């Protein structure tokens, strides 16, 4: 049975999609810039991505932001969206980790597993 609650979900999904650019041809790097992300060091991570993307002349890569991704203890978090592939979420990011993500994942299509949220979950167990 339909309930009014579903409207809330539709509303949230619509709000989230505002963050997603319509230009889907390019890879998008989305940095979590909630209070949690900023306090944990999102700004240097964002700037490191900009620098690395610029250094390699990756014109089709967009670096942008979103709010709190929801797992504040793993911030700074970065989501990489590549057309036709599943979103990859990197956690506990540092400027030092950025060049590997750009070279291995964005340029060569090899996800840096050890930095992903999945790898973190396994360590936890």
């Amino acid at each position, binding site marked *: 049975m339909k309930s009014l609650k579903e409207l809330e979900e539709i509303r*949230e999904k619509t709000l989230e999609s505002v963050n997603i650019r319509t230009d889907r041809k390019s890879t998008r790097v989305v940095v979590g810039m909630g209070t949690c992300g900023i306090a944990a060091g999102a700004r240097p991570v964002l700037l490191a991505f900009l620098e690395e993307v610029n250094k390699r002349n990756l014109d089709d890569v967009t670096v942008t932001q979103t709010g*709190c991704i929801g797992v504040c203890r793993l911030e700074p978090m970065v989501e990489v969206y590549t057309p036709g592939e599943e979103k990859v979420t990197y956690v506990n990011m540092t400027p030092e980790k950025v060049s590997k993500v750009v070279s291995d994942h964005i340029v060569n299509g090899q996800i840096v597993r050890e930095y992903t949220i999945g790898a973190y979950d396994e360590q936890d167990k």
Partner: protein
Amino acid sequence: MRDISLHILDIAQNSIAAQATIIEIQVHEDRCNDILTVVISDDGKGMDGQMAKEILDPFCTTRTTRKVGLGLPLLKASAERSDGYIHIDSKLGEGTTVEATFKISHIDRPPLGRLDETMVSLIVCNPEIEYIYRHITNKGEFVLDTRDIKRQIEGISITQPEVLKFIGEYIEDGIEKIGGGVIS
């Protein structure tokens, strides 16, 4: 937050979430009166009286991922720790102004931090928003208005790496010229 520039980046996120089209950031280093004032104002959707009253409560937030919001409470704590205060003025449908002051000589006052990095981060992530950055010291005033920049670079995006690099350096330089950037 390690420094004031990170607070500014954080508070500006509220303006972005409130669908602001213009965000004005002002840093005033008044060394004669030993007061540092930071003002972030926007033309976003604003808050009603009730929300404006509750906004400094960490358990008041608009986000949906969890039930706490720490941005403004952290700024408040930071200002009050250095003998300052925070003041919020908001009108529904018109926008919000957040003002925070710090006693410059107070030992607990956070450093200003990298305002150039904060502005570049804001611009690259939300290039459609116009930003006015104003830095005032007893020696003078520095202003950066992204509308002026866009007029200058008509036809190319403000997010072009070269443009961003310029903006960062321009701000750093501008602040230095007026003797701004209180260190510690």
